[in-house]
């Protein structure tokens, strides 16, 4: 805004141009207003009219300001992503940084993903068996467990777990770097902070989310096998036969696309929130909370959208 018309003013320092319209909050016509409120009998025409106009125009002003602010925030959110993508594609390339993030987001999450995947598979095995048993079709257990995991629970639960584990850490780390001016320190050294901090994280997210989801799916299928076959006595052959016969490449692909989209959304949101943490005591904690909440909500909303598109 200042950049558009400010060229002249910058060069010559004209006072007129310098007194830009700041975002100030207009104060109600105070003295008159107060005296009117305290003393209704002493009402005079013009001050009370002023007050009335204030109460009419101010909510409109407020709404307008909110709308502009929110649209602007959405714009910043989008531009942030475009800049991160652009920076990821332009030199200097820093594979070292991507590898480091792959370790933090991907490798370090394997244990957790395995654990949750196994637990989810066991629950699916138990619930699936109980439901199918009522229809006498226990042999379909493998198919049910695999479809539910691959198409739905694998990508979603993995994304939620990685958000909780790596996304929150990402937001907190970038937030503390922003608050303690480490981000500015990068800019000062003529290093683009988005290229150095954000792009590697988004790339690492894109790579590691599908891989972790795959691990989740496979471990989950064996978890279901352990319960269904080991505990409930479903014939072992029918469990895997069902999976091989009924799980199509399309099912696998739709799970893969979901994981890809979630990887993008989660790293983008967490980086954005951390990067824009406010410089105050609660800035980091607020950024982290918002990052986790917004990521989780986005994952679930996008999941519905993607399911309806990919079905």
């Amino acid at each position, binding site marked *: 805004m*200042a*950049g558009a018309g*400010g*060229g002249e*003013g*910058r*060069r010559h*320092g004209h006072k007129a*141009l*310098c007194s*830009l319209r*700041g*975002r*100030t*909050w207009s104060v109600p016509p105070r003295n008159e207003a107060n005296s009117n409120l305290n003393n209704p009998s002493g009402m005079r025409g013009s001050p009370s009219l002023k007050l009335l106009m204030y109460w009419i125009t101010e909510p409109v002003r407020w709404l307008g300001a909110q709308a502009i602010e929110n649209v602007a925030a959405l714009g910043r959110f989008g531009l942030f992503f475009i800049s991160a993508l652009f920076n990821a594609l332009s030199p200097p390339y820093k594979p070292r940084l991507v590898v480091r993030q792959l370790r933090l987001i991907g490798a370090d999450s394997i244990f957790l993903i395995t654990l949750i995947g196994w637990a989810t598979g066991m629950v699916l095995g138990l619930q699936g068996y109980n439901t199918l048993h009522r229809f006498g079709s226990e042999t379909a257990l493998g198919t049910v467990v695999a479809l539910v995991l691959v198409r739905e629970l694998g990508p979603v639960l993995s994304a939620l777990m990685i958000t909780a584990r790596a996304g929150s850490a990402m937001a907190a780390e970038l937030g*503390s*770097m922003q608050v*303690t*001016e*480490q981000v*500015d*320190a990068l*800019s*000062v*050294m*003529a*290093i683009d902070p988005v290229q150095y901090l954000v792009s590697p994280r988004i790339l690492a997210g894109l790579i590691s989310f599908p891989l972790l989801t795959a691990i989740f799916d496979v471990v989950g299928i064996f978890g279901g096998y352990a319960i269904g076959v080991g505990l409930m006595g479903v014939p072992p052959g029918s469990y895997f036969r069902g999976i091989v016969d009924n799980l199509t490449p399309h099912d696998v692909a739709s799970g893969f696309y979901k994981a890809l989209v979630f990887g993008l959304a989660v790293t983008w949101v967490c980086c954005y929130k951390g990067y824009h943490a406010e410089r105050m005591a609660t800035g980091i904690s607020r950024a982290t909370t918002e990052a986790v909440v917004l990521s989780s909500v986005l994952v679930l909303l996008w999941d519905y959208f993607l399911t309806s598109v990919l079905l």
Partner: protein
Amino acid sequence: MASKISIAGEENFARIMTSPAQDGSAVAIEIRDLTRRFGAQIVLDHVSFACPHGKITTVVGPSGCGKTVLLKHLNFLLRPNCGAIIVDGEDVTQMGSSELNRVRDKFGMLFQAGALFDSMTVAENVAFPLVEKTNLSRQEIAQRVQEKLAAVGLEGAGNKFPSEISGGMQKRAALARALIREPEILLLDEPTTGLDPTRAGAIHHLIRRTQQRFGLSAVLVSHDVPQVFEISDRVAFLYKGRTRLFGTVQEILSANDPVFKSFLAGEEIDEEGLQAGSNALAM
């Protein structure tokens, strides 16, 4: 009424400009009518002065008067609402990002709180600009890092993390990082705040020595009056967002400005009290 008095005072003490051209030296950074607002708060209000080449320019003023904000405008970390910042004859406010990066390569900056990368050791922090921006060999980088760490008295602390050393040591490590690429212009935000007087003196002399050895231009923000005047070639006194005084140390000290005098004496509230009183009346 109080404000009228202070306006009259301001006219008397508006500027004592020693134009750098007068003593024949070139200008490293010229600040022209720099204005910056945060929301409704005007932090910098038409600040103008010029930092001569190869000299130390010190910015002093009560805390919260916008010294850090001013310093961050010089390498365009913050964007001004209006005004120009001319570095070696080029206006940084008119630059695109690649040009800006070229200019930023001339700068070394020490942040008020150090801004060391806390995921790296002290030595890695100091080496970082060389690792990222040059093609020097590992040995050469290690050698330069040792050199700079020794210069700030941190020989033994290279392998520690920033969280493991004291605030004063962090400041010195950050100073080493600012100096590692031997910049042409050094921006220092309160390099001695939080240090004991002996250390502060040592850092002042380190800054002076480095500046003279490499012929740097430095802009130094400091709270340490009057000690910092020892190493200052020019002093700018910021007050209420304006350059109230600017000149050599001699000129500043003989200016007889009551506000500056009370600032030197450590009584910053003087006019503040009057101002608050008049505000209360207006309510």
